């Protein structure tokens, strides 16, 4: 009886809970069904010349042990790491300026610069980077005109080019997350440190930076996970010379009709993403402790 009253009490407090949760539950079911289909495909044999998958097999996962696939997975993790790192390096000053600027026009300008990439289509954004990074592109032309180089540098079809374009993709999310974290820092802590004689750099390194750790962790994790599924940027900027897992899935699934193998790559990619994110979470715990101190 007492239990029933507690339950009815909860229902009264959150009367629309079931209604609001229903769409999320439906979406979860749809995603779970799609994931189950992918997993099921990954365990089936490829039948040449047909779209129908054959019997159950582990051969697709065994094939992933080949050096090529292992290298693409490692390259993917490395590119994700570099992208997350450089996005943080570029995004932090922007977020800091966004939060601390007093001039409204300056704030708006920073916000527009930071968020505009979100409104450009991925393909358009990537094509614009081809124009910038090409042998006859903006960057090489500038370097040649300034006399810094004698011949165009190779930016296209390199990891540098891919990471540069990916930083542009992940920058808005990083800036938004960092700005949210920075805006929640009580300015009195910084003022207190300054009143005790700490210079601006020391205040930043000992107060602001540690207190913004949650934003850094959230931003880096999101940038990393987001980059893991990058497709158009490595496809177009990498030109087949820099491949990430999604490109391999496309090449082997869509271009070759070998959907079972593409599915096994996707499953392996998903497992790797979870594993790396779990590692990052574990690595972030000491940083969280620093913030609490």
């Amino acid at each position, binding site marked *: 009886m007492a239990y029933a009253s507690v339950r009815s009490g909860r229902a009264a407090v959150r009367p629309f809970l079931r209604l609001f949760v229903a769409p999320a539950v439906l979406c979860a079911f749809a995603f779970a069904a799609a994931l189950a289909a992918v997993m099921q495909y990954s365990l089936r044999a*490829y039948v*040449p*010349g*047909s*779209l*129908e998958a054959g019997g159950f097999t582990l051969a697709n996962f065994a094939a992933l042990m*080949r050096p*090529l696939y292992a*290298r*693409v997975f490692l390259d993917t993790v490395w590119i994700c790491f570099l992208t997350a790192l450089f996005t943080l390096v570029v995004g932090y000053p922007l977020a800091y300026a966004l939060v601390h600027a007093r001039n409204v026009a300056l704030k708006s300008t920073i916000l527009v610069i930071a968020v505009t990439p979100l409104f450009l289509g991925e393909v358009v954004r990537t*094509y614009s980077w*081809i124009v910038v990074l*090409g*042998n*006859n*592109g903006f960057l090489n032309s500038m370097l040649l005109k300034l006399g810094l180089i004698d011949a165009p540098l190779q930016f*296209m*079809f390199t990891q540098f080019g891919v990471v540069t374009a990916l930083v542009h993709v992940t920058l808005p999310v990083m800036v938004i997350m960092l700005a949210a974290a920075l805006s929640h820092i009580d300015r009195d802590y910084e003022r207190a440190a300054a009143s005790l004689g700490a210079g601006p750099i020391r205040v930043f390194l000992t107060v602001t930076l540690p207190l913004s750790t949650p934003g850094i962790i959230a931003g880096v994790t999101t940038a990393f996970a987001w980059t893991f599924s990058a497709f158009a940027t490595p*496809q*177009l900027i990498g*030109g*087949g*010379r820099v*491949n990430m897992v999604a490109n*391999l899935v496309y*090449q*082997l699934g*869509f*271009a*070759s*009709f*070998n959907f079972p*193998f593409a599915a096994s790559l996707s499953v392996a990619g998903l497992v790797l993403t979870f594993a790396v994110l779990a590692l990052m979470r574990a690595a972030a715990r000491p940083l969280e402790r620093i913030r609490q101190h």
Partner: protein
Amino acid sequence: MKRICMMMGALALLLAPVQAIAQDKLVVSVWGGSWRDMVDNLIGKKFTAATGVPVEYITGGTIDRLNKEKLAKGNPESDVTFTTSHVGWLYANDGLYETLDLKKVPNASNLVEQAKISPYHIGTWAYVYTIGYRPDLLKGVEFQSWADLWRTDIKGKLAAPDFDPSHLIVVSAILSGGDASTWEKGQAKLKELKPNFKAFYTNDANSQQLIANGETPVQVILSMNAHYMAGEGVPIQLVIPKEGAVLGIDTVALMKGSKKADLAYKFINVALDPQVQAEVANFKKGSPVVLNAKLDPVIAKLPGVFTSADQWNEQAIIIDHKLRAEKTAEWRKWFAENIMN
């Protein structure tokens, strides 16, 4: 009750014209962009003018459309499907195509032999993948044979499609004394080409951009793309190597389960009309698939545009379409593992 009956009656009257329209349209599955526009402008409108039946288009990528039709097997989303010849075999192998009755397509009597792909699908226009290069950026370099792609002075300058390595795989096999069915003979030779690759393009736009900005001044390129870029002022030289250029044919088929087979046959017949074929060739700078199409002489002279049986026989390397459908995955995997990475 009376009110409900009246409302249902009114609703039925309102819906009746919509249903009639839905039944009186032909649904055609085709690639998007300029392909859809071309099919609509040159074939669809003529079909509608002749039959009074409007055409509705389902557009999408090659594999997207194939997957959709696979899911809709028995109750197809489209009545007529355009796709590439070897992908057409994947539709056919999965029982998605109806066997064609060519007696219902009078214009098919002039179809070139090479365009009779299978009992289920026939060619509608053709093109070649061949060597295209920028003479202004490759001074003193000439290409007369596929073997010239192996020249050391074009090291790091070549691009090829990343979505289909079949052209280079078969060419390499031919240069090594084999053919598509014994493609392994060309593996060692193709590995020797690796240093010459700079990039692998992912679609037509990417190919056009890479050759236009000089990033990859020589490509294994779609003839239609090269002619288009030449028209835009990019100095591209297209070569038909002495071994021939690798033929590609886009095909048309009637979907199994279509309730408008008669209309579909009429549509296919319009697609093979010699005048329509000439207009398609003029627009896309490709080859007509009927021998009685009268092309603009300027277009007919373009490399990779075949207008006679002799040209079809002598200038085209034809990879067996069914074999290509079966081997694509194996070729793609080998190419990704040994050449691209």
